[in-house]
């Protein structure tokens, strides 16, 4: 952090405020429209505060589309991926960081190489495989492929390498096996790394779009982003309903973000390790 000239500080504030204004205005406009009575949202001159409050839009949207269900689906998918990857990633990470076995470096390189392939390449065969398992349009189809990832293995391996081996020696002398060392010593030490990996995974899967789009068909199996994308066709002219739906979908995410801002930011900074 640099200490700076008062004038520079004022300039920085002006720039940042203007930017923040531009960032928030579409969202505030969305909020304002969602509270207007249907039909009054286009009246000129533009009104930022609705003339008459009309929270009924929210009830109407909730009646028309299964928003809670989509929300539940997204939550299940994102949470399963988060905890799944925290477990599988840290297990494999432990193997690569601490165990000696033949082919270790080859397998690790193979894992790393898969990170370079963009998801668009695998989406078509993934769709075929999941369909062959009979998981098309079902929870296993949405969840299972998300439980593993080379990125989480990589992150956890890098983190375990920074833990001094001396910490495990005492346990090893007491006769602890690898699972006990992993579960009782390494995992409790990995709180920050796991939290960061977790928020990052959660964010990725919460916003994931292309995969749930192709793997689901029924309305009740959609995740929130896929369900919301249908808004485009359902509410072509009812802007008040559309915006009410958007606001409802945003509220929990915004709350989660404000609570865990620290980890979000760290998770993003951690992509630097990629």
């Amino acid at each position: 952090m640099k200490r700076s000239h008062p004038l520079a500080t004022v300039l920085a504030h002006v720039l940042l405020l203007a930017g923040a204004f531009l960032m928030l205005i579409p969202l505030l406009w969305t909020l304002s429209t969602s509270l207007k009575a249907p039909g009054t949202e286009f009246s000129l001159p533009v009104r930022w505060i609705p003339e008459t409050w009309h929270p009924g839009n929210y009830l109407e949207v909730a009646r028309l589309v299964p928003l809670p269900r989509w929300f539940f689906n997204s939550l299940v998918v994102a949470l399963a991926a988060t905890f799944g990857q925290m477990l599988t990633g840290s297990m494999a990470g432990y193997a690569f960081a601490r165990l000696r076995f033949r082919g270790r470096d080859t397998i690790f390189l193979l894992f790393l190489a898969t990170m370079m392939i963009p998801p668009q390449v695998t989406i078509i065969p993934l769709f075929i495989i999941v369909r062959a398992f009979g998981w098309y349009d079902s929870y296993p189809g949405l969840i299972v492929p998300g439980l593993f990832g080379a990125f989480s293995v990589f992150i956890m391996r890098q983190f375990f390498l920074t833990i001094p081996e001396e910490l495990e020696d005492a346990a090893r002398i007491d006769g602890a096996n690898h699972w006990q060392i992993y579960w009782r010593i390494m995992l409790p030490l990995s709180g920050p790394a796991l939290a960061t990996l977790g928020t990052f995974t959660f964010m990725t899967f919460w916003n994931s779009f292309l995969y749930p789009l192709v793997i689901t068909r029924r309305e009740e199996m959609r995740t929130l982003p896929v369900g919301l994308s249908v808004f485009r066709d359902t509410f072509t002219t009812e802007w008040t309903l559309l915006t009410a739906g958007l606001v409802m979908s945003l509220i929990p995410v915004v709350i989660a973000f404000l609570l865990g801002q620290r980890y979000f930011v760290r998770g993003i900074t951690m992509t630097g390790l990629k």
Partner: protein
Amino acid sequence: MAAESQVTIPQASGKSMGPLRRHGDGLWALLFLAPSLVGILIFVVGPIVMSVLISFTDWRLASPLTLQSLREDWVGWENYVQLLTWEEAHWSPFRAIAWRAPILLVSLAGLLWLMWRRSLGVIWGVGLLFLSAVLFGYFGGLIVDWEDRRFWQSMWNTLYFVGLSVPLTVAISLLLASALNRQLRGIAFYRAAYFMPVISGAVVVALVWRWMFNPSIGPINQFLGLLSIEGPGWLNSREWAMPAIIITDIWSKIGFYMVIFLAGLQGIPHHLYEAAELDGANKWHKFWNVTLPLLSSTTFLNVVLALIAAFQVFTLPYIMTEGGPAGATRVLVYYMYERAFDTPFRMGLGSAIAWIVFVIIFAITAVQWYARRKWVVYEE
């Protein structure tokens, strides 16, 4: 003493096998690796191999996928040839280039001459070449009727998107991060504000901006109307649809890159600025000679991440325009989706498109990696 070193050496050098642990941990490794290994083999490596195979077939989802059907539908390189050689269009590149070719050649020669005279650094030269390719692609895309040349149309559209969105996103987020990197009140507020679009997700962003850009009732054109400017048709117009998507993309991404820049900026040791001040450096000098070089590894990372993300853009055009109007926003991944997941479900052609996207991303990342040595400064 001797006994001590026997114990400590194997622990310090983690990779060599020490006398205490002569045997490998094969079984334990199997236990720890099994979940990831099985999962990644089935859901990542398997699909990658299948995707290569499918891209050499004309398999269309109608028949179950077996080795038999793969062999029956095998077409060799035909998908790639069809996509890359304009054959899809039965159309000669020379006719469309026509009068633009001499202009392109002259500017190319000029650039090369400048680089040869060393009036222009390699990076700038490559950047300008890239820019002219983008502009050429853009105007090519507008002037030529692309109706049945969708692959090259989507290629140019993607280049146009990447060429504008990546530099602007990186530049704006760097500017914001520099403004934010000082002792200011309300940093948490600013960071949250800029980050809001990132956590909202692309679908919400796309829907909000689809409405912002509505030509008759959207807030943007209403605002322009207040300034007595008649706003364009935005998403309904071939010229303005892509700029609208680019604006939306920048808006939704700068918070993300700003946070990475901020972390990089905070890693620059303060004493370097003090040293520069002692040498009489002004603000601009300090930014140019201290901040930028020391931030270059962060910038490198951001450029690579932004390029990869931009080449894979899908959600915004899918929701805002469905690739329209007249294919003006059909980008590569959208085209892949269209080919593979719309009738007649040409999975082979779709896979070929995906691999072409991969090769482009890979090549650009490799070039960046090489160029990195030229412009990334490492603090010793």
